[in-house]
Every structure is written in structure tokens, then in C-alpha cells.
């Protein structure tokens, strides 16, 4: 088992390799390093503090179980975020009872009104996300926070791809209006 000092200075990939051999201390260091980001993402998806922590714990336990599947193609944090986001979506779908399919847009009117009223005021992402409807918030967070493609988000949500795309587009439009552009930011398209 690696000692405390070497674990603290080790790269994520080294810790993952140690974790795959069952080294708890190495995995604990990974949890310490990345838990804030994972919990933050879940809160941004709309989870309250307790639910976010609960799902984040489940995600790290699942990550430990599946750690040998992590091949290091991307960052460890991104991998755990995807696990956590999918776990939260499962729970959210149970509680929302297919809100995605009904396509209700609660909060959209107030969001639209406040967006129009304060477009010039730069507010932070958390406040901006709070103005989205729940499906928009989840879809935007899945795609831009957890790094899922539209198709992957649709699969996770068990929803039609078109529905997810429209939620993402509406959410983006609202966020674009809500978050003032940075200096020099233009709507240039990138592949």
C-alpha cells in the first residue's frame, strides 16, 4: 500500500492504477481531489445538497467497483462526473415521472421575463441555471457539465433525441441571454 506522502503527490492515473489493486488510500485521495467538482455538478443539475451528496457517494462507490474499466482516455474527474450524472438522472426520472415527455416548461415564463429584463447584468452560472425549467437544466448540465453528447444524454434520459436537443437549445438560449457576453465573445461556429 502506498504511503500518505506518495499518494498525495501522485498523478490521478497512478492513483487509479493503485485503486485498481484495491488500494483504499489511493482511492480516498481521488475522492478528496474530485468530490467537490462532482457534488457541484449534481447541484447544478438541480439536486438539493443532501441528494447531491448521496448521489455523489454512490457515484464514487460505483467508480471504485468499475475502476479497472477506466482506461485513462480522459480525465478521471470527467469519468466520475458522467457516472454521477447518469445516476442522478435515474433518480430524477423516477421523481419527475417522465416530465421530459410531457415537455412542460414551468419557470420558463419567469426566466424569459427576467432574462429580458437583466440581459446586461452578468450573473453567475448557478443563478442562471436556476432560471431554467428542470428538463432544460438537466439536459444542459448533462451536455456541458458532464460532457455527454446529445445522443448519450437522450439515452440516459430515455427520451427522444429531438426532445433533448430542443431542451438544450431552449436552455442555451436562456443562458445566453442571462449571462452577459465576455469581451470579444462572438457567435463563431466551431466544429
Amino acid at each position: 500500500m502506498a504511503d500518505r506522502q506518495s499518494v498525495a503527490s501522485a498523478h490521478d492515473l497512478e492513483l487509479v492504477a493503485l485503486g485498481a489493486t484495491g488500494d483504499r488510500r489511493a482511492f480516498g485521495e481521488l475522492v478528496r481531489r474530485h468530490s467537490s467538482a462532482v457534488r457541484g455538478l449534481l447541484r447544478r443539475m438541480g439536486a438539493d445538497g443532501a441528494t447531491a451528496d448521496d448521489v455523489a457517494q454512490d457515484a464514487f462507490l460505483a467508480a471504485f467497483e468499475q475502476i479497472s474499466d477506466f482506461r485513462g482516455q480522459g480525465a478521471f474527474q470527467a469519468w466520475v462526473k458522467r457516472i454521477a450524472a447518469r445516476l442522478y438522472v435515474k433518480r430524477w426520472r423516477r421523481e419527475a415521472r417522465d416530465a421530459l415527455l410531457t415537455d412542460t416548461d414551468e419557470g420558463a415564463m419567469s426566466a424569459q421575463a427576467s432574462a429580458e429584463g437583466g440581459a446586461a447584468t452578468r450573473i453567475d452560472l448557478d443563478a442562471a441555471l436556476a432560471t431554467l425549467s428542470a428538463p432544460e437544466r438537466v439536459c444542459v448540465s448533462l451536455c456541458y457539465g458532464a460532457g455527454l453528447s446529445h445522443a448519450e444524454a437522450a439515452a440516459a434520459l430515455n427520451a427522444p433525441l429531438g426532445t433533448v436537443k430542443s431542451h438544450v437549445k431552449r436552455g442555451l438560449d436562456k443562458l445566453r441571454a442571462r449571462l452577459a457576453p465576455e469581451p470579444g465573445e462572438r457567435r463563431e461556429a466551431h466544429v
Partner: protein
Amino acid sequence: MSDAFEFRLERMFADSPAMPDADLFTLEVMGRLDRGWTARRLVIGGMGAIGGLVGATQIVGSGALGQLHALSSQGNAYLAEQLSQVVPAGLSHGGIGLDVQTLWMIGALAIVAAGFGLVRLVREI
């Protein structure tokens, strides 16, 4: 296709502040991990004990022990005969107490020791 705003949004999502209770959260995760392993060990151990008990009951109930005893007696007689040809009489009868049962026991222990050795060897490799 992504525009500059979408890249900015990804950056904003990636920029999350450190939570003040990150250490406590880590302890909770590790605690759950340890509890999970303990529970798993208990379940596996319990299932093994129940399985062993059921297996032993089946063996006793099927009369296999009697058959095994008969086979063992035949084997003992054969082994004793072979042994008497290669081992001096003083050794096999009272010299150092090397009877057939002891030989069976030594053989079984040798197999167990070989198993342990093999496992150790595989771990070293």
C-alpha cells in the same frame, strides 16, 4: 458545432469551488466502502458455511461415507501391502508409528501445502 458561448459554458461548469467539507465527504465515502466490504465478506462467509452444511448433510444422508470407508479400507490394505515391501518392518510397525492412515494424512497435507505454494507463486508472478 459549438460556438464561443458553449465553450465558455463548459469552462464555467468545469470551474467549481472546493467544498469546505470535502474531507468529511471523503471519510463518509471510505466508511461506506469499508462497510460494503465487511458486509460482502460476511455474506460470502455465511453462504459458504450454509453451503458446506448442506453439502455435509447430503453426503451423510446419501451413505457416501460408508462407501468411502469401504474404498479406503481396500486402499489401506493395498497400500500396507506395498509399504511392507519397501519399508523395513521396524519402521512400519511401531518403529515411528508410520501406519497407512498417517500416510494418507501426510499425502493430504502435502497437497494442501502444494496448493498454498501455487497460490503464492501466482501472486509473486
